[in-house]
C-alpha cells in the first residue's frame, strides 16, 4: 500500500487507536495497529479482542492494501512530527515513512494475520444524539465496580432501550447511577446490553463530539455492540450475565429532603473528609431547622464541623455516608443545586440535580454507613 496524508490526521487516528492496545498482550500482532487503504481514506484499527476501535482519516491513496505497525512506537513517532504531509509505503514486513527530509522504516507484521472484525449480522439498532450519549456516559460509568473479583457484570454499564427511551445504569453495590434519555429512532424490541464501562469511556472520548451516534447490536446472539459516529467506530464484546434488578433498589418514595448548594456541600465534605481519615471516610449529615450540619472526627486528626443553609422538607434526620462516594456523585451533578432525598438513617438516599439536564435525567442512589 502507498498513501500520503497530513501528519495531524494520521497522528490523531493512530493515537486514539493505540490507547486500546493492551501493553501486556502475549499475541504480537495485537501490539500493532492495522492501517487499511481504500479510495480516499485510510482506516486505522486496534483491538484487544474485547474492544476494537476504528478511526478513519482522509488520504491520497496511490495504492490500496494494508499494513500493521507497532502501535505505541508508531503513535509516539507521529506525536513527535510537526504539521506537514507524510508518505507511507507498506509491505507485509515493513512500513516506510517519508516526512520532509527524514525516512523511517518500521518493522511490520503481515496484515492478513490481524483479527477480523465480527460478522456484521445485525440485531436491533438505533441512533442517539452525540451529546445525550456522552452526557449519559459521563453521568453513569464512574459508579460501576472496578473490582474484577466481583465479576464483569458490575464492571459494566447497563443500556436498556425501550421504544424511544434509553436508560443507562451503573452500580457497584454501594451506589447507583441512572441516566434516562431519549433516542432518535423507536426500537421495536426492548433490549438490554451490559457494556464494559471502559468501552463507553472510549466512546465519550472519541465520539462525543459527533451529531449522531449509531448503535447496533452485532453477531447472531447480539453479543457485540458497535457504536459509530463520524469517522470513528467502537465495537465491544458485551458482558454475558444478569444485571441486578436496579429498579427494586431505588425507593419509590422518600419522606424528607434537602435542597443544597452543590459546590458548597462538595467543599464542606472535602474538608471534613480530611479529618475523617480512615478508609471509610465517614461524615455525618445532621438535618434540622433548615440547616445541614456536616461533622467528622477521628482519634488521630480531631473534629470537623460545618454548617450549611438548606431548604429542608420533612422531619429532621442524622445519617452517615462515605464522603468520597457522596463527593463523587455531587461532582457529576451539573448545576448549582442538588436535591437529596431520604427515608431514614439506614435506607438508601437519592441525589439528583434540582434542574434536570437538557439531555437527560440523572438520579443517584447512595447507601449510608452504619454508625
Amino acid at each position: 500500500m502507498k498513501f500520503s496524508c497530513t501528519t495531524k490526521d494520521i497522528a490523531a487516528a493512530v493515537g486514539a487507536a493505540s490507547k486500546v492496545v493492551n501493553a501486556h498482550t502475549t499475541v504480537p500482532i495485537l501490539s500493532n495497529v492495522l492501517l487499511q487503504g481504500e479510495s480516499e481514506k485510510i482506516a486505522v484499527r486496534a483491538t484487544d479482542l474485547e474492544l476494537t476501535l476504528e478511526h478513519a482519516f482522509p488520504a491520497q491513496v496511490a495504492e490500496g492494501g494494508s499494513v500493521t505497525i507497532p502501535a505505541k512506537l508508531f503513535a509516539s513517532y507521529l506525536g513527535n512530527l510537526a504539521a506537514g504531509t507524510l508518505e507511507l509505503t507498506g509491505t507485509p514486513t515493513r512500513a516506510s515513512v517519508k516526512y520532509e527530509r527524514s525516512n523511517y522504516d518500521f518493522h511490520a507484521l503481515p496484515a492478513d494475520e490481524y483479527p477480523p472484525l465480527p460478522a456484521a449480522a445485525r440485531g436491533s439498532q438505533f441512533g442517539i444524539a452525540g451529546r445525550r450519549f456522552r452526557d449519559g456516559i459521563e453521568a453513569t460509568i464512574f459508579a460501576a465496580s472496578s473490582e474484577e473479583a466481583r465479576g464483569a457484570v458490575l464492571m459494566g454499564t447497563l443500556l436498556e432501550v425501550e421504544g424511544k427511551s434509553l436508560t443507562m445504569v451503573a452500580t457497584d453495590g454501594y451506589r447507583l447511577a441512572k441516566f434516562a434519555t431519549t433516542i432518535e429512532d423507536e426500537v421495536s424490541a426492548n433490549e438490554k446490553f451490559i457494556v464494559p464501562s471502559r468501552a463507553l469511556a472510549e466512546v465519550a472520548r472519541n465520539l462525543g463530539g459527533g451529531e449522531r451516534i449509531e448503535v447496533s447490536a452485532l453477531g447472531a446472539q447480539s453479543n457485540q455492540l458497535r457504536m459509530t459516529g463520524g469517522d470513528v467506530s467502537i465495537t465491544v464484546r458485551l458482558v454475558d450475565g444478569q444485571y441486578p434488578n436496579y429498579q427494586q433498589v431505588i425507593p419509590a418514595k422518600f419522606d424528607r429532603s434537602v435542597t443544597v448548594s452543590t459546590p458548597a456541600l462538595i467543599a464542606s465534605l472535602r474538608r471534613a473528609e480530611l479529618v475523617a481519615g480512615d478508609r471509610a471516610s465517614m461524615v455525618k449529615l445532621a438535618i434540622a431547622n433548615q440547616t445541614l450540619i456536616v461533622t467528622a472526627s477521628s482519634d488521630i486528626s480531631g473534629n470537623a464541623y460545618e454548617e450549611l443553609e438548606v431548604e429542608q422538607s420533612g422531619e429532621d434526620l442524622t445519617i452517615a455516608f462515605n464522603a468520597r462516594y457522596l463527593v463523587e456523585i455531587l461532582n457529576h451533578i451539573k448545576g448549582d443545586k442538588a436535591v437529596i432525598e431520604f427515608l431514614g438513617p439506614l435506607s438508601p438516599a437519592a441525589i439528583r440535580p434540582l434542574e434536570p439536564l437538557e439531555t437527560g435525567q440523572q438520579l443517584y442512589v447512595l447507601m449510608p454507613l452504619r454508625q
Partner: protein
Amino acid sequence: MNARDKFVAHFDVDAFYASVAVRDHPELRGKPVAVAGSSRRAVVLTASYEARPYGVRSAVPLYKARMACPDLIVVPPDMQKYRAISREIFEIFERDGRTVEGMSMDEAFVAVEAATLDEARESAAQIRREIFACTRLTVSAGVASGKMIAKIASDSCKPDGLLAIAPGDEAAFLAPLPVGRLWGIGPKMQARLAVFGIATIGELAALDDARMRELFGSWWREARELAHGIDRRPVEAERETKSISTEETFEYDVSDERQLVGVLRAQALELAEALERAHTVCATVGVKVRRADFTVVGRQAHLSEPTREARRIFRTAVHCLRRVELQGAPVRLLGTRVASLVEGDARQTSLF
C-alpha cells in the same frame, strides 16, 4: 539519643525447640537432635548444635536430614510447651518496665537502660542468668547501640554467648562480615554487589557517594549508614499487625482446582474469624501459591470496601488464584492473606 535507651540488647534462645527436647530428655544430650513433624513433607524446625555440622538445620526436608545424618534423633514438636516457655522468657525480658520488641517466640530486642557499655553488658548477662535459672535454657545475647548490630552480635556468639559492641566500634566489627549480614541486602543485591567485587560490609562502607547511589538508588544513604553500623530504629514495644495470613502445605501435591478452591474457602473462614477477633476489617486479599517445582507466585486484589465477610474474602481469593493461571500445575502450598487492615466494623451498607 537519651541516656535511658542508650543500648539495645538482642536475645535469641539457642536452638530453642531442640534445647527444650534435650532439657526434658537428658539422654539426648550431646547427640544430634532435630525437631520435626511426622508428615511425608516434614522439614526440620530446629536442629541441635550437634546435628548442624551434618548440614541439618531448619527448613531442610527431614528425609534429606536423615540421609545426611543417619544417627539423627527426631523429636516431634510440642507447640503448647514452647508457648508456655516463651511466656516465661518474655516475662523476664519485660521486668523493670523494659521495652521489648518480640520477633518470634524465642527472640526479642530489649531496650537496656545503662550509662556505659559495661553496665549494659551486665544487664544483658543478668537477663541471661534469670532465663537460665527459670527455664534451664541458654540464650545468646548481643548488646550494641542499635538493633541491627545487636542482632548480628548475638548471631556471632552463639551458642551460649554474650557479645557487646562498644559505641564507635560498630564499623570495625561489621567490616570483615559478608554484606549479606546487613538488613535489607538479600541474595539479589548480594549478587549485584559481587559483580562490583564487593563481598564484605567494609568494602561496601568504603564506596563513594556516586557508586552508592548507582547501586542502591533512593535507599543509598540508609544503606551506607547501616554499613557503618549506624541504626537509629528504636525498639518498639508493640508492632502493629499489618496483615493476617494462613497457609497449608499439602501432604501430596494438588492439581485439582476444585480442591484448591475448597482450601481457600476454609482459609477465608479462618481469616474472617481472625479479623472479627481483632476487631478489624481488611481491604486487600491475596493468595500465595508454591508450585511443586518450589516456584512461588502471589496475586492480590484490592477491595473497594473493607470487609471481614468470609464470602467476600473467599471470592476475592478465588479470583486471585485464577489470575495465577496454574493451568493444572501441581501445587505444594496454598495460602490466603488479608492486609490493609483497618480497625472497626464494615460500615458501608449495600444496595443488594
